[in-house]
């Protein structure tokens, strides 16, 4: 976006014996990047390294042209001198200060006098629609209000890099919906770089311009949300976006999967590919179907779960597949674990894309 290059340019390497984070990361001014991954993937480690709460073992971290951490060159800027703002998972509002003084804390530390700091804090609280709660202590605020005070506190120092650690995880479902919408507004308005750490794909999809999927300390996939949701490259991402995902070798429309099973797809490729299709593309039949579907195979029902208005059926057999069927269809088929069925997927409903 910016001609001057990314605002944040980092290669975060943190070695902790059994666990190693190795994550290249760049963020442009005004860009919101979501770091999405399962628990223990290294998301919080990355955030703490960016904030200076954890030193890098190797790699580098440059923000707004300033080298914050570069072990090879012995460069290190401590947390309190970094142009960052952090919204912590449980907000960590200072319990002995009211909302106004919590927000004024950062500006005060960064050189404003008491009067100016309070004015800046009042402005931010007004922007968050919290003016009438300025004198309240954190324990007198609701979860959604506390979240907005925490966001105001982080933004009041006008950080070059805003870090958010699971900003909506502590909220109930109803509050989360409203707060997510407001958060989206404020993140859009933030001129600096934003990194959102989350395990909730919905937060990532709604709030971020770009996703970085992290598993076991490594980025496994990165790009705009649309690309990632359409073309998952790991089982974790496939589960997040609700797709069946397989890897194999393509010859034209025919793909031979790693375990020998063959699928016919709608796309033509040659070489290593991923094949993905949604559970709704899988049809179940009591007997071997005849007619158009090119992909049919006998399977066994391994499990049945509610999924929205439908039932999601887990199938075992030559490949493991999730299938969505309507309750009516399920009743007709008398679906129960252990029962044999025939599964069918139309080639036109599968997508293949290169794995390399």
């Amino acid at each position, binding site marked *: 976006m910016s001609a001057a290059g990314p605002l944040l340019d980092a290669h975060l390497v943190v070695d902790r014996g059994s666990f190693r984070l190795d994550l290249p990361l760049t963020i442009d001014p005004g860009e919101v990047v979501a770091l999405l991954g399962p628990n223990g993937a290294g998301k919080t480690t990355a955030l703490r390294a960016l*904030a*200076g*709460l954890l030193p890098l073992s190797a790699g580098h971290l440059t923000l707004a042209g300033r080298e914050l951490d570069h072990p090879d060159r012995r460069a290190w800027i*401590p*947390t*309190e*001198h*970094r142009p*960052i*703002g*952090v919204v*912590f998972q*449980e907000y*960590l509002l*200072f*319990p*002995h200060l009211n909302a106004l003084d919590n927000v004024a*804390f*950062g500006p005060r*530390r*960064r050189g404003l006098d008491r009067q100016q700091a309070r004015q800046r804090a009042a402005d931010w609280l007004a922007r968050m629609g919290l003016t009438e709660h300025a004198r309240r202590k954190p324990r007198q605020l609701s979860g959604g209000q506390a979240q907005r005070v925490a966001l105001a*506190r*982080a933004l009041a*120092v006008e950080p070059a890099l805003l870090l958010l650690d699971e900003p909506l995880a502590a909220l109930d479902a109803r509050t989360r919906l409203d707060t997510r919408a407001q958060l989206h507004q404020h993140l859009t308005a933030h001129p600096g770089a934003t990194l959102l750490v989350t395990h909730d794909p919905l937060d990532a999809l709604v709030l971020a311009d770009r996703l970085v999927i992290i598993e076991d300390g490594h980025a496994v996939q990165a790009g705009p949300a649309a690309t990632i949701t359409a073309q998952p490259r790991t089982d974790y991402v496939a589960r997040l976006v609700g797709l069946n995902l397989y890897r194999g070798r393509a010859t034209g429309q025919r793909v031979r999967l790693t375990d020998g099973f063959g699928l016919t797809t709608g796309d033509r490729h040659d070489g290593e590919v991923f094949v993905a299709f949604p559970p709704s593309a899988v049809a179940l039949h009591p007997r071997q179907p005849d007619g158009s579907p090119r992909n049919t195979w006998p399977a066994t029902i391994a499990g049945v779960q509610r999924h929205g208005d439908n039932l999601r059926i887990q199938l075992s057999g030559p490949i493991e597949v999730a299938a969505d069927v309507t309750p009516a269809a399920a009743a007709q088929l008398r679906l129960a674990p252990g029962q044999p069925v025939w599964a069918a997927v139309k080639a036109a409903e599968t997508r293949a894309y290169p794995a390399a």
Partner: protein
Amino acid sequence: MALLLPAALGLLFLVLPLVGLLVRAPWSTLPQRLTEPAVLTALRLSMQTATLATLLCLALGVPLAWLLARVRFPGRRVVRALVTVPLVLPPVVGGVALLLVFGRRGLVGSWLDATFGITLPFTTTAVVLAEAFVAMPFLIIAVEGALRGADTRYEEAAATLGAGRWTTFTHVTLPLVAPGVAAGAVLCWARALGEFGATITFAGNYPGRTQTMPVAVYLALETDLEAAIVLSLILLTVSVVILASLRDRWTGG
């Protein structure tokens, strides 16, 4: 039953002396006794020295507690053990030790005397030092416990907002552990108020200068039993008030 009887005896053993104190108190002459100049002088001196000793303990003990709770350094366990020594050391031994260091010919005392012409033993300052020596571990242990219990993530949050170590300590950590510091200070003050052994050894027994309440009680015992009882009653009352003020924290409500 095998446990109830000794339990009852134990309770009796703890309570009976206090009851005896109340029974033998010269209630009819109490008002005059309480306003005797000697009693008031000792009371005032005790309050002043205990308060000064507590302030000294706060100024030195809180940073020491922070060091023990927050900073990893080699020999930390040794330092923690050293800090608690005055807790188990007989106060008289503490008084002797203070005398050897701060006495006119002591390690530090001779230097103070030669450089500034300051003599510490048998002065009110000596009383404060003796009380602080004995009472400081109470404060340090209470504050260290509070610091260990405090959530250090608030300190990380302060750092991300631009606060250095000192600002974080004064603006975030200290307010968070304020209840612990207050409880430690009250305990420390109570211990300082009751200090006898180290005081009489290091500071002696000069009315108005070093004769605190416990010292006065001890001396009155030989000449005027009623006066000793009255002074003891005052100390008992102070103890009960302190216990009541710490009720929620120490006796579980």
